[in-house]
């Protein structure tokens, strides 16, 4: 079945927005950290894991989701948050540690929570999978057709929570989808050095569920596979695993010396950038005009700029506010 054009345009805009957002975050993060890099300095301190290059996973899945569907994300969460429609102003303010942030500055970049669109993320590898499992369980109990998607890195597939959750999801036929972004590394450890399994979709057989594999960071393939998985989940046909071969252009975190990989690797990856590929596809196969593309890009850029301005202009929380919100 043909893909609706508006879905493709949304995906392009979203991927472009994510790229803009991460590029701008890399710059903001670097502020106050030169000439000497100090992780705790500048307007955006702490660890920073960016998703530049990994846009197709988030956009290709979230285009099929509605507000009531749940998304859990890992320590590298911005692309999922943006694709799920998290309030960009408040998300950015949170990352800048401001009082207007999603968590009033208490959470930070790895701990973004936007219950309005049912998005959450966390800094413990694999921990989001059971949360998505629980959301799927709740949907079933409430008799809703909502689905829950847990985005994880390929490294998290070796964590106990992954296996325990999928076993239960299969047992109870829950609307859970685990999207594994295989960006080839868990920090410095290449995938081949962390599992003997060739690709994680084959692990689906271990739980008797559906497994899908998306090659070479392909946004369209991701779209198609996600569509099927979401439909299956919504109609009570149970959980699935999607592994997408994707690429991490930057270090594991900003400031990563990346001693473990060839500097050339990323140059080659950038030559087949998924955003450029999708752009060309829209221009060449769908007759989308340069003008339309430019409009989408400008809209995305403006939205991102606005979010950063909001974050920078916002105030820091008062120190004593640290004592609030332990209990609600």
């Amino acid at each position, binding site marked *: 079945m043909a893909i609706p054009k508006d879905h493709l345009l949304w995906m392009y805009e979203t991927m472009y927005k994510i790229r803009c957002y991460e590029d701008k975050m890399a710059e903001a993060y670097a502020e106050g950290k030169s000439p*000497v*890099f*100090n*992780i*705790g300095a500048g307007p955006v*301190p*702490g*660890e920073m894991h960016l998703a530049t290059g990994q846009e197709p996973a988030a956009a290709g899945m979230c285009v099929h989701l509605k507000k009531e569907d749940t998304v859990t994300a890992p320590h590298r969460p911005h692309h999922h948050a943006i694709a799920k429609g998290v309030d960009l102003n408040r998300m950015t303010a*949170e990352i800048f*540690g*401001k009082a207007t*942030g999603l*968590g009033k*500055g*208490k*959470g*930070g*970049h*790895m*701990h973004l929570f936007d219950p309005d669109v049912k998005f959450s993320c*966390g*800094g*413990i*590898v*694999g*921990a989001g999978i059971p949360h998505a499992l629980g959301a799927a369980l709740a949907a079933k109990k409430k008799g809703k057709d909502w689905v829950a998607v847990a985005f994880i890195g390929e*490294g*998290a597939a*070796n*964590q*106990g*929570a992954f296996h325990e959750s999928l076993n239960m999801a299969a047992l109870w036929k829950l609307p859970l989808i685990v999207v594994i972004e295989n960006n080839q590394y*868990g*920090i*410095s*450890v290449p995938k081949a*050095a*962390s*599992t003997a399994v060739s690709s994680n979709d084959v692990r689906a057989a271990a739980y008797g569920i559906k497994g899908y594999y998306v090659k070479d960071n392909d946004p369209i393939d991701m779209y198609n596979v996600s569509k099927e998985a979401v439909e299956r989940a919504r109609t009570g046909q149970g959980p699935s695993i999607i592994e997408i071969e994707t690429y991490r252009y930057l270090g594991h975190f900003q*400031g990563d010396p990346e*001693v*473990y990989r060839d500097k050339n690797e990323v140059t080659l990856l950038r030559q087949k950038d998924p955003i450029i590929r999708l752009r060309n596809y829209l221009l060449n196969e769908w007759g989308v005009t340069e003008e339309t593309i430019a409009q989408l890009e400008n809209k995305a850029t403006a939205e991102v700029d606005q979010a950063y301005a909001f974050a920078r202009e916002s105030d*820091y*929380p*008062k*120190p*004593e*506010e*640290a*004592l609030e919100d*332990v209990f609600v």
Partner: protein
Amino acid sequence: MQQTKQRLLTGNKALAEAIRLEMERDPNVFVMGEDVGVYGGIFGATEGLFQKFGPERVIDTPISETAFIGAAIGAAAEGMRPIVELMFVDFFGVCMDQIYNHMAKIPYMSGGRVKLPMVLMTAVGGGYSDAAQHSQTLYATFAHLPGMKVVAPSTPYDLKGMMISAIRDDNPVVFMFHKTLQGLGWMDQLDASIGHVPEEAYTVPLGKANIVREGTDITIVGIQMTVHQALEAAKRLDQQGIQAEVIDLRSLVPLDKETIIQSVKKTHRLLVVDEDYLSYGMTAEIAAIAAEHCLYDLEAPVKRIAVPDVPIPYSRPLEQFVLPNADKIFQEAIQLVNE
């Protein structure tokens, strides 16, 4: 006076050197953990070891803490002497069963017949906006549970000497190193993170506190970062005519009660400072020891400074508000002495 050239090392290099020396000495010693290989450990604790010993003895693991920490237990029971790294202490949550139900209890439950000569080393501490899941120290969480030694050195010298002791110890040792005291180029630069470290192997006993500054007016007890903050506060107190005695606990289990008691008997005032949560923590334990053993020597109530029972917040002003620092120690000490 004899001129001695001091050999200076950062905390992380002192640690890696200790492990290297023990690996050279004993073929049963090996290292496992996430990114301990080519990367050299996220906080540099295994720097250079992979290059020297190769992938058979410096093993990068999958992100499977339950399995690799559990595997260290199994290997230790076979007479190996594994050193496993839990990258951040905060991640204990995914593998605590192996740590406290097994590592800490098997020697006891076996009536001492099964020995687990292993080291679980892990990074602790905050102060750089890494937020609630990457900034804790959790000293007391581990120290509360019987069956494992829990140490937390504060200087490069002690990091090396105590790591060698930990590796040679026949008991499981939880070895906590503080990120900011590793002397890493990409974190806050602290003089205390670089220090004299002799080249040869030496041991520093586990379970012996260190009086790092002698004084007569108040005893300040700390561990890791709070020791250095206490020393800074002590300098300022000195200018006010107050002589603070600063004790570096170094080890939570076993705990050197005697050094604390003797000091309190001398100074009659006690301030305990901890980067861990306040309630049910190290500060309470030390206060209880004072109450039990030298209550009548105290001329003022015991005071405590610690994280006020909230998760570590991300935003800088919030985090700085909850963490101890030299200023807070100085203020509290002044008040206490004037009480």
